[in-house]
């Protein structure tokens, strides 16, 4: 069966050990987590775990049901990319000898990324966006040499439907 990447938004009680319960369930049922992000929600008693994983539809339904069965899990949503806003944050430390710095800054500007640190031979750039934008930047910076990169898991919310 075809594996498709899904973004699951899991709202849980903000209690110790809940993240372990969720992630160990993925491990036990044989699912690989591609990315993971956790933080509190607007309600401090609740946390949102955003999980990106690849799965066939039938097995995704199974893991979703298993996650939902956990006592501390309030809600599980498989986010539709067309109906949600997704963001990742990345920090790139790029090789930047003086003569090439300008080009790198140009690229960062195009992507509306920020230069957050300048070293003698490097630039550190902060970028946010959807995965494909972040991926495109990574691709461009590789030409200069990425010394280090840190990337958060994806976070996501469904789009407002008030109107």
């Amino acid at each position, binding site marked *: 069966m075809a594996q498709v990447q899904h973004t699951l938004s899991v709202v849980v009680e903000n209690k110790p050990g809940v993240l*372990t319960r969720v992630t*160990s369930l993925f491990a036990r049922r044989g699912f690989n987590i591609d990315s993971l992000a956790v933080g509190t929600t607007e309600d401090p008693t609740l946390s949102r775990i955003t999980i990106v994983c690849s799965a066939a539809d039938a097995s995704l339904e199974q893991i979703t049901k298993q996650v939902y069965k956990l006592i501390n899990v*309030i809600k599980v949503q498989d986010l539709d990319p067309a109906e949600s806003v997704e963001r990742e944050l990345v920090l790139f430390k790029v090789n930047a000898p003086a003569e090439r710095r300008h080009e790198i800054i140009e690229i960062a500007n195009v992507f509306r990324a920020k230069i957050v640190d300048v070293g003698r031979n490097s630039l550190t750039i902060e970028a946010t966006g959807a995965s494909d934008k972040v991926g495109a930047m990574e691709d461009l910076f590789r030409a200069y040499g990425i010394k280090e990169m840190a990337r958060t898991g994806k976070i996501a919310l469904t789009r407002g439907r008030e109107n």
Partner: protein
Amino acid sequence: MSAQRPESTQGSERVQGSGSAPKPGCASKPERVIGAEALVRCLEEEGVGIVFGYPGGVALPIFDALYSSEKVATVLPRHEQGAVHMADGYARTSGRPGVAVVTSGPGAANTITGIANAYLDSIPLVVVTAQVATAVIGTDAFQEIYTTGITLPVTKHSYLVKDVAELPQTVKEAFHIAATGRPGPVVIDMPVDVSKSEIDFAYPASVSLPGYKPSVRGHGRQVKEAVALIKSARRPLLYAGGGILAAEASRELKETAELMQIPVATTMMGKGSFPEDHHLWIGMPGMHGAKYTNFAITETDLLIAVGARFDDRVTGKLASFATKARIIHIDIDPAEIGKNKVADCPIVGDAKNVLSSILAELRKSEAEPKTQEWIAKIDGWRKQFPLHYGTAQKGTAQKGTGQAGTGLAGSTGTSSASGPAVLYPQFVVERLSALTKDRETVITTEVGQNQMWACQFYSLREPRTWVSSGGLGTMGFGLPAAIGAQAARPDALVVDIAGDGSIQMNIQELATARLNGYPVKVVVLNNGFLGMVRQWQELFYGRRYASSVISQEVPDLVMLAEAYGCFGIRVTEPTEVDAALLAAFEFDGPAVVDCRVAPEECVYPMVAPGSSIDEMLGGIPGGPVSEMLDDEVAEEVQG
């Protein structure tokens, strides 16, 4: 519920809990107690009459508090695994959560098999594990293990109590979670400093679990759809599992079956949910089901699964399981629906509620059964392919053709003139079934051949009289489970149908039975092998009996029984079976019947792993079913 304190104290070891100062009554008024006392008060509030507990360093405050309880009796097992299996046996036979209390480290680690066993069979347990003091958690302190971590994948939920103030709410939630929805084990890990801290005790009246709301009632539209399917089916079949027992839905199952004249197959976990002497009962499906049961599943046009989970031991090769059928799947756990087999009509809900709704709809629409031909067809298979035995020693005297549910067709137990009679294990089970027919009996089993023969040849009639390790297949379960069952049902005859391999895994619990006055009877089908392993080696590994040969002689089970202060008796001839069983039943205390049975008897029929369930080894020759259909049915099937 009254405290289950054994009457008889045959040994020096008294069940604790009697003779201490009276406790103040109701818990509604706050009272200053320590955590351990608060825990015991919580258990009392939950109506717990008995706990199975093994003490140790950090568990001492809890055991000290249990010692003064007037309402909660404590039974000391000989191993923590035994404690959990006892609580499990208690839960299965009483319908109430079983409780075990153990110490930290090795005590907690020894509970894992028992907890996993209860988890896979959806049995409500509350297991209290003591823990090292909160200040040293994470430092590899003496007897520290990460209990909530190692129990995580085998519990429905777990708690580490870090503050004594959370304790009453935690216990309340633990019992609620264990017993509702799809039941399961819950662990409460209790650090020793929490046990010693003071608290103004008051038991909460309710739980608040925003993430836990099991769906109990079936969806109305789905119920209507199920009813339509049932009314139009020509060859319907009820496939009933442990969910019937968990939901106490036996009456609804019987009424549904009788109203629409639908045959009922019960899984091993569902045994006892439908009377096995009923004409609509057609046996246990799956790997060691009767041929007629598996043929019926293969030919049904509507499979109504209730509280069953399409386990691989039932389905065999999934792709060819019940392929001619529409499937109604009723289960309280939404994750079970569609997990292994796609359902045409899924209904999430409690078996009792959903079957009641279905019954009401069926009655309202004055539905008429249309299954006469179908039942006749299954009865034909039943006559043609009954369960039978005597395959190992071909040509010897005694051949049984007994059918589960109808008792004793064919077996006589007498030697023929041609030679000494072979003592078949199935014959022992048949005799046990016949001799206990008219008395309140609970059967527990170990795991392996003994268990399958018990399934095939013991005829059950009542719910909660069958206690067997299904999902995990835990050898050593039967004896401690029997003790738990006896604690729940002091007046019942409790018999553990055992093998000589399994019984040795928790044999030490004979001491618990003896000293606490639980007169359980262990019938060992002693063939000198790890029988089911040997059977697979005979069939699939060229009779290379690697590590499956034990011994019929060592240990001497009769002497071992006597060493534990129990009654022991040996049986080597079919003619001795009845007298030995009756002597064991009559003995006022635990007993072991060492039956030296035919060593290389196999459990037949058998679906080889990975095969379709209608392709069975052994048994009366014939099949697969599609080749044997008469023209009329074949036409209908093809049409």
